[in-house]
């Protein structure tokens, strides 16, 4: 009997304000607090872009496109288009937007981040397939471009697959 090492798939860690393109079995990971992890996935092409959105609106503030919801979405669509992925057939999955320290904590932006992402997706007519948002704890998300599964891990809770 021959034993072979398990296949090691490429993984992208999507840091704050970053956008990553993953395809054909590549995996994207991010750790979120009040930020939103937004996945736009094309199932037939097994390709997705994953953004780690920090704030709702740019309003001439400095920063990469992935930092703000209103600039991240157009950039994500542009990246997909550059890679030959059509807009038709795209679906969205959304996670994050926690309020980790209650009302006394630092900047409570999770709800606002979530609300604007949802509104922008509606404006663009991109269907939202699944969401896991809000609450008081952070999330670790792992997106598998082979299956379209978005695994959400939280401290003290069982994992959820969207």
């Amino acid at each position, binding site marked *: 009997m021959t034993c072979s090492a398990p296949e090691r798939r490429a993984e992208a860690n999507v*840091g704050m*304000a970053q956008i990553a393109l993953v395809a054909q079995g590549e995996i994207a990971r991010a750790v979120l607090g009040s930020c939103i992890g937004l996945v736009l996935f094309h199932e037939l092409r097994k390709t997705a872009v994953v953004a780690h959105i920090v704030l709702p609106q740019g309003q001439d503030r400095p*920063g990469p496109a992935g930092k703000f919801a209103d600039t991240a979405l157009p950039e994500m669509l542009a990246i997909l288009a550059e890679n030959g992925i059509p807009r038709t057939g795209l679906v969205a999955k959304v996670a994050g937007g*926690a309020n980790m320290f209650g009302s006394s904590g*630092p900047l409570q932006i999770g709800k606002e981040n979530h609300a604007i992402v949802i509104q922008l997706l509606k404006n663009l007519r991109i269907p939202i397939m699944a969401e896991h948002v809000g609450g008081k704890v*952070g999330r670790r998300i792992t997106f598998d471009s082979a299956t379209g599964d978005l695994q959400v891990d939280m401290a003290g809770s069982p994992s959820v697959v969207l």
Partner: protein
Amino acid sequence: MNATAPFDPALLGDFFSAATQHASLAMSQWTNGRVSLSLDELREAPLEEVSAELDMGDDLLTMVVLGVQGDGVQGGMGGQLILAFDDENGRTLAASLLGREVVANAGWSELDQSAVMETGNILASAYLNELTRLTRRKLIPSAPFFVQDFGASVLAQVLAGQSLAGDRALICRTRFEFDQRQVNWSLFFVPSEELLQTLLTAVQTSAANA
């Protein structure tokens, strides 16, 4: 950080060294000489690289989070301090403070949480007292908040506030020793843009008066 006004983080080195030294003395008194800390590194990093730079990965950590409040910072919020441990180190600290043996894999009782939160409070108070002396702006910590979560999640939430003003974050890395052995504790100080400017002004004033 304000993208239009870059600065050399080394300018703040003396201030942060002094604050860390002050905090170390307070921690030594609080733990009967068992815990000390020193400033390891102070520099800027792009926002998206901070978690990786701090090697936070996606580990679950036990943390005490305190806000910075006081005069001269709008709305009373001047940033955050985070004292973080892995579970084993957090339990070791709590057990040491409560004078009992470490119980692995037990829940965190209110007393355990209280002991660790008080440690964060003492550390932050000493740290900010020294910055108060150096800046002549009263800075005090908010009530401590106990949290067990992904370290990177907590840091991201804290950095979201700083990201309103720019794309770079000030990293203040601190080394801890427990019974003369380096331990996996971390103290992160994330000043707001406003407090950072206050600190820089104080440094310049101090240099001009020297």
